[in-house]
């Protein structure tokens, strides 16, 4: 036996195809420290998610095509919608095991992240306090009423969701969110989980050359990971990041400052009622993976507010996973719907089937051309996976999105469209 094959890791194998090491994730001052074993826990979880998507999910499809669908067709005829598909899949062991493993992996990811943050809570909260205390760029509202869509269930199994403080000044929730995105996406969102923000910036630079926004509003900004690239790309702009979660905003400002980004204000507000801002006071309004965490009524109201707040000539862009349509099989729709029912994303299913154009028009965008496009995460592909060339499709997790938006018409004084 040749000497160099004596060790199993020296086997001749195809080039490694998988998530990068967790330690590549960007370390800003607010990022919790991870021990060797804590980092390895995230590595395992990233690999688990990848394995489920690349090796287990194809078995679900095979089971659907060879067992589930033929049996259904024989007994009741063709499937009529994605819900029938999902309910039939629920009875099949291939779907049951993929689901049980996916759910368990998500729960393990939460435990791993929470462990890291809770054990150093004192230090983290103190850092955030030092960076944000007395800073006018953090605007929290005493007695703020958290929207119902956040309190019903904890989104994506994150205990306490976006808004819970375990004690005054607590930032362990957002720190856990920041840490764990790597595990869920296999590093697909890049060093600072901001691949979505960079994608939006690239889209704007490509499609609106010369666009120089003075005021930018990001709704459902969370800890601001997607708004920071926008603030960096337009350093002259005043950027307002709005979220309902006080811990997210506190952590967000501290994190932005530790990354040297100074032109973002973090404001606690309900995106349905932005009356604190004047009509036509923003050049650009952005949401990135936010709408699916609201509700139908809320989304209608949010759309109306974006219309009111946009300056003539201003743009609104919403980034989400692709909409369900007649060109998408019921099977794929059912698989994408998994998050709605089993990963605490209750509005996910409705949001992805809703006629967004119709909603935009109802919100007052009847004069405008509704634009649709696709974007993929922009990351340092020397280190992180390139989303558009990755053939592994983990439904609902892929860092490639659908964009819907509009550019508000400039009106003549007579009130006619220019």
């Amino acid at each position: 036996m040749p000497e160099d094959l004596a060790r199993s890791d020296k086997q001749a194998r195809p080039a490694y195809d998988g998530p990068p090491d967790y330690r590549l994730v960007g370390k800003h001052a607010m990022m919790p420290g991870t021990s060797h074993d804590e980092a390895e826990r995230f590595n395992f979880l990233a690999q688990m998610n990848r394995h489920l998507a690349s090796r287990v999910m194809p078995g679900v499809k095979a089971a659907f095509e060879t067992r589930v669908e033929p049996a259904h067709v024989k007994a009741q005829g063709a499937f009529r919608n994605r819900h029938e598909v999902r309910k039939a899949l629920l009875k099949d062991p291939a779907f049951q095991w993929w689901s049980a493993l996916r759910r368990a992996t998500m729960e393990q990811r939460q435990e791993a992240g929470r462990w890291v943050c809770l054990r150093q809570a004192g230090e983290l909260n103190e850092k955030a306090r030092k960076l944000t205390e007395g800073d006018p760029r953090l605007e929290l509202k005493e007695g703020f009423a958290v929207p119902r869509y956040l309190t019903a269930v904890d989104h994506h199994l994150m205990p306490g969701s976006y808004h819970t403080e375990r004690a005054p000044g607590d930032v362990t929730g957002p720190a856990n969110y920041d840490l764990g995105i790597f595990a869920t996406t296999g590093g697909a969102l890049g060093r600072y989980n901001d691949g979505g923000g960079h994608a939006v910036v690239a889209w704007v630079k490509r499609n609106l050359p010369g666009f120089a926004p003075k005021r930018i509003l990001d709704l459902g900004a969370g800890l601001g990971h997607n708004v920071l690239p926008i603030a960096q790309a337009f350093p002259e702009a005043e950027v307002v990041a709005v979220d309902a979660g006080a811990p997210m905003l506190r952590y967000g400002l501290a994190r932005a400052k530790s990354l040297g980004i100074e032109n973002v204000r973090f404001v606690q507000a309900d995106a349905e009622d932005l009356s604190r801002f004047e009509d036509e006071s923003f050049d650009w309004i952005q949401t990135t993976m936010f709408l699916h965490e609201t509700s139908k009524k809320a989304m209608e109201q949010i759309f109306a507010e974006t219309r009111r707040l946009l300056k003539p000539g201003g743009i609104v862009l919403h980034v989400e996973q692709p909409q369900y349509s007649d060109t998408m099989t019921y099977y794929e729709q059912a698989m994408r719907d998994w998050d709605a029912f089993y990963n605490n994303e209750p509005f996910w299913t409705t949001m992805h089937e809703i006629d967004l154009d119709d909603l935009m028009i109802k919100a007052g965008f009847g004069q405008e051309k509704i634009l649709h496009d696709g974007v993929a995460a922009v990351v340092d592909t020397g280190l992180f996976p390139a989303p558009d060339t990755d053939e592994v499709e983990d439904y609902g997790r892929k860092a490639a999105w659908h964009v819907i938006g509009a550019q508000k018409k400039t009106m003549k004084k007579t009130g006619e469209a220019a």
Partner: protein
Amino acid sequence: MDAFDPLKHAGAKARGKRPWFLENQDTERLMTIVMALAQEVSVMRQRLDTVERVLEKKGTLTRADIEGFAPDKAEAAERGAWTQEFIARILRILQQEQDALQRGDEVSSEQAAKDFQEN
């Protein structure tokens, strides 16, 4: 401070009724325990890999060396590939069932035995 006791709160349940997928809830309980164990075995193996690499490079070892270890791209690829092998081994039964599905109806050894009695 009790609110931040990791032993008490790291494994907290998210608000919202938990769905169970397997035919038998006990089986799913057991599966989640096994997968948590698999995670810890993976962590332990990587720690050993780190120890080996540090010793190979330096000839000495401190715990600070382990905590400060960061694999380069080639090392990360080797460790990543090991994890892929590990998970593939653990979840082998699911792969087998996919294979079975692709083959369609197969004869069992017992059936073949009966057949060979006669022919």
